[in-house]
């Protein structure tokens, strides 16, 4: 019953197709595993064959499976922390149901979604193995290994989510802390992913010393046992006996791990579901210090200064907002470290900052309008309220994003070899101007298509949509202008590349500013019509 309830909650957004959702999902997964995955991996098969017999094979597969394993632990945790629901725990506690059954029910209710994720990942990995000539027994073992490993991960995630959710649900700021953690916890995994994609990790693992360190460090994890089996079978296709003992040991270990995790989880559940308040604290506000007095001053000191200061306080006291900033800065730094070319010129720095870093920052700072429509109605009730609302949100967005962008730009630019002070200052000024423009654009987009949901999931979706739009716009505009030959390089052929790119980007910044103002104007009209 609990599992069915959980399934209904999970599929409430698609309840119209709920009756045939599972058949649809099975069909799509079958198409992916049978047709799409083999087609995707086909171009890489020769490289894979060469790679699988190298020193780097085991540690790299270990790392890849570790990333998936960890993501699958994080998924239920992040999902739960985003929207803590203590009221539901109360329903369960009031009913004659054992906490372990509640936990198991929730796990089983989400199982269809976990199964889809497991099938996709497993299907992709087995697609690499099929052309190698593995026999059916080997394929079956690989599938079983992956299923057990990932089910363990999801189960651990569900248990940790239940414990964390209950603990955080007891404290006043629990929801806020949960939402903040849900954002932050994925950052280390993104770092590992970027390191694999562009950080030269495979090359580093070719070194026997490095390879051994990684194998030893990750060796204790069940994902690494699966990796050992995977590489052993791939190296000995059709010959299960060659690695029989090793397979038996690792598979047995994996099974034991899964059963132990299940047992521990059900024991922990009895302690996890409790609504006893551990401590009762209420946060208080201190009198305005220098910072908020400055904010008030920036807002003109009078009523608008007060409004700005209030909006700023509400923003900065939410850990979730701060976690988004940390996330944005973290992603930008990780991209710069692992993805982009480190030996680049200042000119590449400009392109990277303009097309990636600043849009990400802008989207995470002003990507949504407000929590709940009722907040908007406070402003709608007051004289010229909508304009006041948008002006304060815009100024608040600028005040948050511009200093962070400037600092980020300064750090990233200083890291370049032989950078001059002039280039550094130019980058900072230009970057700040671009940030002003893009914050305006993103806020305009956010108010044109406002999302007032209290729930993080919907608000995050809004942020993601606005981020995509502004990313494509910045990249698209840049490429578009270059394609039609609109560049200062043509008007002023004697100036250097850095200056040309800088002028081009300043022109684009002006274009974005105008677009942003237009979007804000349209958005205000839209907000005024909302009922």
């Amino acid at each position, binding site marked *: 019953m609990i599992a069915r309830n959980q399934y209904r909650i999970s599929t409430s957004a698609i309840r119209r197709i709920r009756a045939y959702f599972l058949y649809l999902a099975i069909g799509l997964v079958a198409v992916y595993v049978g047709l799409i995955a083999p087609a995707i991996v086909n171009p890489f098969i020769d490289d894979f064959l060469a790679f699988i017999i190298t020193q780097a094979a085991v540690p790299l597969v270990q790392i890849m499976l570790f990333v998936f394993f960890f993501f699958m632990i994080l998924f239920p945790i992040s999902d739960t922390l985003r929207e803590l629901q203590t009221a539901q725990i109360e329903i369960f506690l009031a009913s004659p149901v054992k906490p372990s059954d509640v936990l198991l029910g929730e796990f089983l209710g989400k199982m269809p979604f976990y199964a889809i994720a497991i099938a996709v990942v497993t299907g992709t990995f087995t697609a690499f193995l099929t052309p190698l000539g593995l026999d059916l027994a080997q394929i079956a073992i690989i599938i079983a290994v992956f299923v057990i490993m990932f089910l363990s991960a999801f189960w651990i995630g569900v248990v940790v989510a239940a414990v964390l959710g209950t603990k955080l649900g007891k404290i*006043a700021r629990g929801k806020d802390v949960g939402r903040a953690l849900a954002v932050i916890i994925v950052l280390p995994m993104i770092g590992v992913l970027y390191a694999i994609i562009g950080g030269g990790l495979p090359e580093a693992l070719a070194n026997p010393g490095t390879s051994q360190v990684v194998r030893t460090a990750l060796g204790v994890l069940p994902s690494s046992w699966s990796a050992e089996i995977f590489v052993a079978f791939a190296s000995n296709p059709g010959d299960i006996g060659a690695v029989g003992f090793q397979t038996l040991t690792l598979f047995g270990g994996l099974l034991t791990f899964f059963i132990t995790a299940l047992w521990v989880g059900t024991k922990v559940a009895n302690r996890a579901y409790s609504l006893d308040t551990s401590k009762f604290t209420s946060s208080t506000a201190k009198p305005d210090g220098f910072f908020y007095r400055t904010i008030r001053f920036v807002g003109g000191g009078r*009523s608008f200064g007060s409004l700005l200061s*209030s909006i700023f306080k509400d923003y900065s006291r939410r850990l979730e907002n701060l976690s988004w900033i940390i996330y944005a800065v973290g992603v930008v730094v990780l991209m710069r470290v692992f993805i982009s070319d480190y030996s680049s010129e200042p000119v590449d720095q400009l392109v990277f900052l303009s097309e990636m870093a600043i849009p990400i920052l802008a989207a995470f700072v002003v990507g949504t309008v407000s929590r*709940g429509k*009722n*907040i908007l109605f406070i*402003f709608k*009730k007051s004289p010229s309220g909508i304009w006041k609302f948008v002006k304060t949100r815009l100024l608040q967005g600028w005040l948050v994003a511009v200093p962070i962008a400037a600092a980020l730009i300064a750090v990233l630019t200083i890291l370049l070899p032989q950078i001059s002070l002039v280039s550094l200052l130019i980058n900072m000024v230009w970057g700040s101007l671009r940030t002003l423009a893009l914050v305006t654009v993103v806020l305009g987009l956010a108010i044109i298509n406002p999302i007032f949901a209290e729930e993080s999931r919907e608000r995050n979706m809004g942020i993601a949509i606005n981020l995509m739009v502004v990313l494509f716009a910045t990249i698209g505009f840049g490429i578009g202008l270059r394609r039609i030959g609109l560049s200062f390089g043509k008007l002023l052929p004697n100036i250097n590349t850095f200056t040309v790119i800088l002028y081009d980007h300043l022109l684009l910044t002006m274009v974005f500013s105008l677009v942003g103002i237009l979007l804000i104007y349209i958005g205000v009209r839209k907000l005024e019509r909302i*009922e």
Partner: protein
Amino acid sequence: MKVVIDTDKLSKFYGQGGEVKAIDELDLQVYEGETFGLLGPNGAGKTTTVRLLNCIIKPTNGSAYVNGYDILRNETKVKRATGLLAESPGLYEKLSAYEFLEFMAALYDVQNDIVHERIDGLLKLFGLYDRRDYLLEGYSRGMKQKILIASALIHDPPILFLDEPTSTLDPRAALMVKDLIKTLSDTAGKTIFICSHILPIVEELCDRIGVINQGRLIALGTVDEILALTKTKTLEEAFIAITGGAEEKELLAWR
């Protein structure tokens, strides 16, 4: 007596072709200094009426004047003349009570030199002065309601709209709000427009009441006039008689 709220065939329709008539040709006059109660079942159109009269939404047809100002042409003046406690009010939970009132004062351009004195006065009046620096997220529902009523009064408007002012309050807080409404009406000369389901409160506080159902005003007058009209003894009976209600037998038919 001076009419401060005057509606003329005020209508608000929703949906394609306006098939949902939230308010249908509402004709209503509320007098200065009067406490007026608007009663009606859920979905009758009470909140829509309040939102129309506060210029939060625009009418489909008809017109209305609040404190002498046209709700369509003098939006800003209407908003300055009214204070609103909404049924589902927005609240910045990360602000303290003091900071939230300061924010509301800024929204209505209350002069800086009187803001602090007024906020302190309101916090003392509502018994929240000692908790003024606590963030609103830690407040109980009743305490939040008090802050919201205080915020509706922050710019000292002559007309106050209270949409379900006591529905979430404990008896003690409800009594306090009731007394406050009386004081505001009797001594401060405010015009108060109350929407409520709690009939005893409306009965005790309001000089006149209107009953609205499915967007139409179906009864208007003093409590005695309504009782006489419906030939009932209590306002509850009158309300059921006017709006229609299930008999006890029907309610328990499933047993």
